[in-house]
């Protein structure tokens, strides 16, 4: 599969405050997105997701690093012919109606009038905004803006769609609808890059993710590889063995009705626990390996060490 977006050694520094102090936001970021995948760009608030995306779209200029979009340097206007972008908290000309708005963006892509006439109603239908077609954007709610913003990002039938927090400000049904649209885009062969800090959404739809913490990518790869890499611990519920003896093998957590919940981190010790229980003539009630979720992985990385 060929690469549609590649970022190599991206660095960006902002000067902040009244007496400018330089603060490095992106500290050398590299990743590549292949054609046809949904790529999740994950990171806590303030980690630099939006900053990265702004560099890619040419809104800000990196201090160092190379970015290639659709096989061209990203500052070449032609590289953006087949790119769609939805910014975080989108704002648009609020004096335009939804239809005029999409038409304006269609014109910026030099789409012929008949192409626009055909595409705009289809997009309005896709994002379920037909009833608001002739309403001015001033009267749109945040969720509605998000939807029309998504429609705007698709006006040129892009091969790469970059969405910054596309599910922000949406209700659960809205989130599902947008997720469905994103999955549909992939089935049409488009590539989607989306940033989020909401793990559930990413876990549900992304093929690959990169995890950004404090301006560095701490981990990236296929979601299935990342989260199934480790079994975090095994939870064993048992009875008939004293806490003191168990403490040597794991972490006894709670004791209720004579049953102890033991967290065993070391896989090799599971057998030792079972042997101990048999020795003491106790019982094992359940044994549950807890595999890692994206959330565990994420929280583990983000937590200051």
């Amino acid at each position, binding site marked *: 599969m060929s690469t549609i977006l590649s970022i190599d050694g991206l660095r960006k520094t*902002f000067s902040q405050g009244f007496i400018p102090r330089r603060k490095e936001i992106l500290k050398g970021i590299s990743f590549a997105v292949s054609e046809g995948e949904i790529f999740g760009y994950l990171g806590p608030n303030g980690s630099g997701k939006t900053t990265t995306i*702004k560099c890619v*779209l*040419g*809104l*800000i*200029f990196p201090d160092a690093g190379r970015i290639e979009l659709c096989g061209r340097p990203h500052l070449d*206007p*032609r*590289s*953006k*012919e087949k*790119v769609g*972008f*939805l*910014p975080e*908290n*989108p*704002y*648009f*000309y609020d*004096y335009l109606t939804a239809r005029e708005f999409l038409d*304006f*963006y269609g*014109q*910026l*892509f*030099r789409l012929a009038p008949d192409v626009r006439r055909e595409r705009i109603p289809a997009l309005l239908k896709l994002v379920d905004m037909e009833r608001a077609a002739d309403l001015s954007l001033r009267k749109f709610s945040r969720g509605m803006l998000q939807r029309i*913003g998504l429609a*705007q990002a698709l006006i040129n039938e892009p091969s790469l769609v970059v969405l910054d927090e596309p599910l922000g400000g949406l209700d659960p049904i809205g989130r599902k609808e947008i997720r469905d649209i994103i999955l549909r885009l992939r089935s049409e062969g488009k590539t989607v890059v989306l940033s989020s800090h909401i793990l559930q959404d990413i876990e549900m739809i992304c093929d690959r993710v990169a995890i950004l913490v404090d301006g560095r990518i701490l981990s990236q790869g296929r979601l299935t590889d990342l989260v199934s890499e480790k079994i975090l611990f095994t939870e064993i519920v048992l009875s008939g063995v004293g806490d003191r003896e168990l403490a040597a093998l794991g972490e006894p957590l709670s004791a209720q009705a004579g049953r102890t919940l033991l967290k065993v981190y070391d896989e090799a010790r599971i057998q030792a626990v079972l042997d101990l229980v048999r020795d003491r003539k106790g019982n094992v009630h359940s044994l549950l390996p807890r595999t890692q979720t994206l959330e565990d992985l994420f929280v583990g990385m983000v937590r200051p060490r």
Partner: protein
Amino acid sequence: MTVKVIAVNTFKEAVRDRILYLLLFFAAAAILLSRVLAMFTVGDRTKIIKDVGLASISIFGALMAILIGTGLVYKEIEKRTIFTLISKPIRRSEFLLGKYFGLVLTLAVMLASMGLIFLALILIQTGALEGRLLLAILFIFFELVLLTAVAILFSCFSTPILSSLFSLGFYVIGHFSWSLETLVKKARPGLGKTLLRLLTAVLPDLENFNIRTEVVHGLPLPASLLLYSAAYGIVYAAFVLTVAVLIFRRRDFI
């Protein structure tokens, strides 16, 4: 093509600005007031009306250019509407020129409106129209073409209020730069004189666009002078826009 799309949209945006109509209202009031003013003066009343009317058109046109021009680009960045625009396959220069020509178009329409009121008043007063009045308005337009470029330049890197002050300063100094030249002649040689000379070289002479006295008093207007003034305005505006594009091209939109 892209420039045109953005210009048309900018025009749509600018004509929704209430400030524009407030200024248009005051301009109309000033033009009509010249008729009242003329009644209290002795001498050629028509000349007074022409003089005050044209001056009103010039001043209110300049205010429109400054007050709207300084907000146009700034607002796009502030409201973040520029994000989706710049992410499209358009050049930043195209965006800026689109904004510029959109405002120039707006000002042309506004000048036409003020001109219409003015010419109607003259027609009522004298029963005849003079082509040279249109020429005077055309040169006001040339001045606005330049002033708009300056306003857009400032708005590329500073807030509307500061930009307005800068542009207003540019306008005022531009109309008095001829007195600066007299100052240069009188100044003693030295650093001060060199600085003054540099200033007169950089600052425009906006009086070039003021042919109102000649028009009102029926003085001759050589074609060469007119051509020179028009070319001066266009070249100067192109220069200012180039600087604006150079600044705008390297800007981070954060």
